[in-house]
């Protein structure tokens, strides 16, 4: 029997561009054409000024560690505890939840404000998740 898998996102019409992006190795955000607000999660209007004129763009994929927990129990299906659930502050402004890879899952290794860069983890033919690892250099 297969191991229980981690929860898999199911895109909607408004979020499809984001998941197409991760599959193509890009972290895509949206920017308001009217007020220049950059926002996340995806939606086809600006949550700051309500303009429907918004553009999708490729973000730098760089950010910093805003906060996290190291979850010990209960563990979500597909995860081996302890594992960190992190919130990353992207250089463009928005924050997103993710996991930190290539890094010990300890308070000593996970320093707030450490520099991070996006890494893509393919779950299947349709879904690739944006994870983050300590930035090189």
């Amino acid at each position, binding site marked *: 029997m297969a191991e229980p898998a981690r929860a898999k*996102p*199911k895109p909607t019409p408004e979020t499809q561009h984001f998941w197409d992006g991760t599959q193509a190795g890009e972290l895509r955000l949206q920017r308001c054409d009217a007020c220049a607000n950059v926002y996340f999660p995806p939606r086809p209007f600006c949550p700051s000024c309500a303009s429907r004129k918004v553009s999708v763009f490729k973000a730098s994929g760089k950010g910093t560690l805003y*906060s996290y927990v190291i979850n010990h*129990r209960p563990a*979500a299906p597909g995860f081996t505890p302890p594992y960190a*659930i*992190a919130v990353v502050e992207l250089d463009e402004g928005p*924050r997103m*939840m993710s996991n930190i890879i290539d890094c010990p899952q300890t308070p000593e290794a996970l320093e*707030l404000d450490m520099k991070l860069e996006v890494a893509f983890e393919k779950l299947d033919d349709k879904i690739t998740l944006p994870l983050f690892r300590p930035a090189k250099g």
Partner: protein
Amino acid sequence: MRRNAVAVVGAAETTELGVIPNMSQIQLHADAALNAIADAGLKLSDIDGIATAVETPQQIAHYLGITPTWVDGTSVGGCSFMLHVRHAAAAIEAGLCKTVLITHAESGKSMIGKLPRSTPADSLNGQFESPFGVYGPPSMFPIPVLRYMKTYGITHEQIAMVAVVQREWAAKNPRATMKAPITVADVLNSKMIAYPFRILQCCLVTDGGGALILTSADRAKDFPNKPVYILGTGESVETPMVSQMETFNSSRAFKVAGPTAFREAGIAHKDVDHLMIYDAFAHLPLYGLGDLGFMPHEETGKFIADGNTRPGGKLPLNTNGGGLSYMHSGMYGMYALQESVRQMRGIAPAQVKDAKISVCHGVGGMFAASGTIIFTNEK
């Protein structure tokens, strides 16, 4: 809303609290409701307004045999009942109904007749939080706290003191689930749940319920118990996604709900005799003290660690023992309200002497929602 126009005239919890394997969730609602109706000296047929959360108002109205002219099914997490109180007070003032019953119950431990909670994979939470391993409140609610600690210089020991002090209150309460004294070392050596929080910094998981009955202040004096007036109220919501809060240094919903209630009540912080801040996890009283304006966030950890909120302290906080030590069925707001009402009636197990104003602040759905009710026993 007009001050002191509406009062709580009935208040009760379920007959038992803790582990109640012989009752379904809906029966826990009924048990609490019947106790509150008896407390108010009313009949079920006197109730013409009903509010509840998670379970629907139609479910509870039908089960109890009530025909309401006003219903409220606001369900925004554990503070839903604070919002119900606010909405009910407005409805009574507007003449939409005369006597409102608010019920909460949850078979949180025994899980009998409990509705399943699920996060659809195509919801925003399902797409942008669930895939990263969040799994229940312990893995989500504490996510902001490391940032809060860094910003304000709060220590692990100070947050551990929240649990220590609340256990001191619980020791005075025969109905509290956990009464044995604990130390900071006990807290910091207890089982790790989601770093930085250990099990003694996480709420209990129990069965139980509670109910309130509200009516206009004009009618309130005819009831058997001392009326507890609603002096001020506030509410707000922010986001169902903890990762998308405006900042982890405070809660926007707290900062709207709390000050709105204070303005409405026309009171200053020094007027507060008794305070409840919903403590699903140990950091919430710190956020509450700061966002409600009792002190700058930098001082919240020291304020609690110095003993200001413990029995005999100058700001008695979470005097039933809180979600950490009294009980927590999943939506604790109702129990915070019950303790405020007991304090205002003068019948709490750990009664604050001569308390005249009680502030009761709730949180819901991680930091998604908030409601604040300010009570007084003086009109």
